[in-house]
């Protein structure tokens, strides 16, 4: 994009880098990253919950840091490295956080799970004092809601991986 543009550009050309793959796309200027992932790239593992930044279901990593994709324009992510739930497994082997969620039954309906897992993966790379106690884990996972209230098992899953 250039500041020299004179015609009104309500469409944007972007290059989305998702899970190591490059996806060129022509999108409406206000397409969110969430909608681009789901509707244009057909990566539907990332879920739309509130669509207003309150529930965390749409959490993905941008350049290694967790963000909510519903309040991010795809255009803002042009060239950024995006990681979604589809990008966690390596050669079909689930990420340790995914294994721990299964082992601890850290879900009921599963709708929030992709966002919970992405947030937990990010948390494991943040300051250690954010996962020192169960209360710390709860505090730094508070941006991910689970209406089935699987919270105790989510905390247990993260605690196990954090302790390894």
């Amino acid at each position, binding site marked *: 994009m250039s*500041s020299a543009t004179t015609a009104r550009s309500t469409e944007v050309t972007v290059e989305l880098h998702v899970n190591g793959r490059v996806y060129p796309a022509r999108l409406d*200027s206000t397409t969110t990253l969430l909608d681009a992932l789901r509707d244009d790239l057909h990566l539907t593992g990332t879920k739309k919950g509130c669509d207003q930044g309150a529930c965390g279901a749409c959490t993905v990593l941008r350049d290694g840091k967790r963000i909510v994709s519903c309040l991010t324009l795809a255009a803002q992510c042009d060239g950024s490295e995006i990681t979604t739930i589809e990008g966690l497994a390596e050669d079909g082997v689930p990420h340790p956080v995914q294994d721990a969620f299964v082992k601890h039954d850290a879900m009921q309906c599963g709708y929030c799970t992709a966002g919970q897992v992405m947030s937990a993966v990010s948390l494991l790379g943040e300051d250690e004092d954010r996962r020192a106690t169960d209360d710390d884990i709860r505090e730094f996972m508070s941006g991910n809601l689970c209406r089935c209230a699987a919270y105790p098992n989510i905390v247990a899953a993260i605690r196990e991986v954090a302790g390894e």
Partner: protein
Amino acid sequence: MSDIEYVRPTDTSSAVTLVAEDPDAAFLAGGTTELDLALKDRVIRPSRFVDIGRLPLRGVTREGDRLRVAALTTMEELAADPTVRSRLPFVREALLLGASTQLRNMATIGGNLLQRTRCRYFRDPAVHACNKREPGSGCAAIEGVARMHAILGAGPSCIALHASDLCVPLVAMDAEVELLDADGTRRVPLTEFYRTPGDRPDVENVLRHGELVTHVVVPLLPAGTRSGYIKVRDRQSYEFATTSAAAAVQVEDGTITAARIGLGGVGTVPWRAWEAERVLVGAPANERTYRAAAEAAIRDPFTVPGTAFKVELAKRTIVRILRTVTA
């Protein structure tokens, strides 16, 4: 289809021009509030987003006894800064008690300062009466559910709250905002940056259209000063303040020699409690003094039935933060 134009200039002066030349254009930084209001609530209608997210306005620089924070530094980045940890600990506390980690990775410091002063009625396009959206249309919040609304700096035209946690210690510290437009730069104290609603609730600060916040300059606390931030809220995490208070206090031989107090959750603007500070300085560090300071801070509130409880809650929040930082 959207009719909002998106541009991403690569230099700061182009960004300023692109907003200045179009009265309906808006800067887009982290987007956590701006995109919500424009695309989800649809209560603001920018013609153009000028994405400033990649301009070279990121990072924290120590300049003697001050910290110069570039406006696009994220909340998480500022909270992690070593000087903030050691010399402005209550700024770090306020940052980490705000929003969620996801939002703090997106939201910028400039954007935090400029988040709209807003309430649920402003955010609901089905509500017609909102003097902030349409001056003269009335205020639905006055007779509505007002628990999360302001009691200081408020009036019959508007009781919407400035919801920032970060701004509470920043106004207490006499932080300054550096602004840039085509005419050059200027620096405005944060305590003079915001405007209470009066009869123009749509005007929230002294920014001119097209003017860009480039930096926030924060004096460091003198050695030996104790500081803290307390946030009272309806759930334990990831919630706006019902009331909050930031305090930095020095005590020598049982007497308070310096005090800075900011209040959140109560003001239409981030609130500096000057009157409380005047009560504190020179007085003995005890409960009686703290209560007198709290009474002075909330002397002339504008309340509606939904916010009347906040008068006492805010006073108790002030007493508690003073007790905490002098313990």
